[in-house]
């Protein structure tokens, strides 16, 4: 029979890393939209103070973002290192949204974060606003795809066990993507991110 000790330890490890990761994620999800608002007001009014406002919060955003990435990457490796049978059994289904998250959303996010941090003096203010919008959209899209993967673990739709390969195979990508659980989770998670960022901004401003 399977020794429960190493299973428990693997669970603890994933839980610990996931909890660390989510210390950084919600602020990224919400603060980017707050930056969008500040930049948009700057573009509309042209008042210096809104630009300075955005520059200040971008500084805090950057510190937070760097750690979000460092903690997130190691989680994805753990599917292979610590959950090998999981990856074998459901990897074809679970891997799809995970890969899309990595390829599409995370790349979008990373590229535009560079522009966000370095492009201030090189872009005009409308271009810069567009960059901020893309960073915000990228972070939120990342959340969407990772939650599609997570929701599938709760509610494994669109897939079936195949006796040919002895593991789970995807039957319908659309069902996986439009999993009802994923939609609820996405709304809940980004809303949590917006609340987090609001509390962060209001708290620091109160200081």
């Amino acid at each position, binding site marked *: *029979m*399977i020794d*429960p*000790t*190493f*299973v428990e*330890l*693997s*669970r*603890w*490890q994933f839980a*610990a*890393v*996931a*909890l*660390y990761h*989510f*210390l950084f994620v919600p602020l990224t999800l919400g603060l980017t939209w707050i930056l969008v608002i500040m930049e948009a007001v700057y573009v509309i009014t042209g008042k210096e*103070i809104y630009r*300075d*406002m955005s*520059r*200040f919060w971008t*500084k*805090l955003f950057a*510190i*937070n973002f760097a*750690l979000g990435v460092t*903690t997130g990457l190691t989680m994805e490796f753990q599917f292979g*290192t*610590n*959950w*090998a*049978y*999981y990856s074998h*059994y*459901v990897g074809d289904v679970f891997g799809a949204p995970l890969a899309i998250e990595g390829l599409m959303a995370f790349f979008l996010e990373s590229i535009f974060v560079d522009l966000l941090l370095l492009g201030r003096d090189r872009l005009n203010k409308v271009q810069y606003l567009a960059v901020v919008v893309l960073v915000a959209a990228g972070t939120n899209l990342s959340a969407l795809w990772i939650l599609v993967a*997570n929701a*599938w*673990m*709760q*509610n494994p739709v669109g897939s*079936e*066990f195949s*006796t040919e390969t*002895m593991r*789970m195979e995807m039957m319908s990508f659309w069902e996986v993507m439009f999993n009802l*659980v994923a939609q609820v*989770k996405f709304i809940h998670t980004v809303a*949590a991110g917006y*609340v*987090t960022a*609001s*509390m*962060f901004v*209001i*708290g*620091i401003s*109160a*200081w």
Partner: protein
Amino acid sequence: MQKVKLAAIKAEWDTTPAPAAFTVVGMPNQEKMETGGAITIPWVMGLITTRSLDKQVEGIKDLIENHEERIRSGIIAYKKLNALRNGDTFDETKAVFEEHKADLGYGLLLKAYVEDSADATDAQIPQAAKGSIPHVSYLFWSFRIMVAFGFFMLLLFALSFYKLAKGKIEKNLTLLKVLVWCIPLPWLACEFGWFVAEFERRPWAIGEVLPTFLAASALTVSDLVVSIAGYLLFYSVLLVIEMYLMFRFARLGPSSLHTGRYHHETGGDMLSLNPAE
């Protein structure tokens, strides 16, 4: 799966006639399958989970009974699958497997109690069924902490917005202090929320498909102790650095930009906060 999580979060042991009451607080007891000292609000549970007044919310006891049946059906699927793996090509074997396939995961649950699910005794099946429900009180409390923090923050936002709109927020030192001290709240709410989201899936890695204990890699305990210690150490160091930087810049506020226009650079008179500038 979704039914289990609802029942567990709400500590709903028995299926009650619709619309079910919502237990606000209480002491869920997994052994006796009851909630002591419960304060309930009639109708609310039925309304929020089924969005109707006449649909029932299934209780944990009934779910366990249902899981027992599914485990029995899962054993059949498991046996037929083994036959197929061993080269059985009869159409009938395949047909029976297809019929019970949805319960294969439930059959695998028994592997926590017996080497081969096909050899499970009549005592192990109810045991596995009972083990198919997560620990209710952890979920019950984590969920309530998350919700309470969430509502408290919304209240704070509403109050702050009201004071700000009236232009009085700077004078209200108590509110400002509360706001600063509440900065950690959303993070706590998020972590409790994720705990609920993941723990409610117990004992499954993939709901009703793959039990967690089967999903793990065959690592040794020492491998894991080393890697956990490594992760914790590395991330804790990073977290300390992050907190240091955050505190440093956040305390300075916009004067960290060195524009010479703000607060700490102008002798604290906040002149330049005039948005007309």
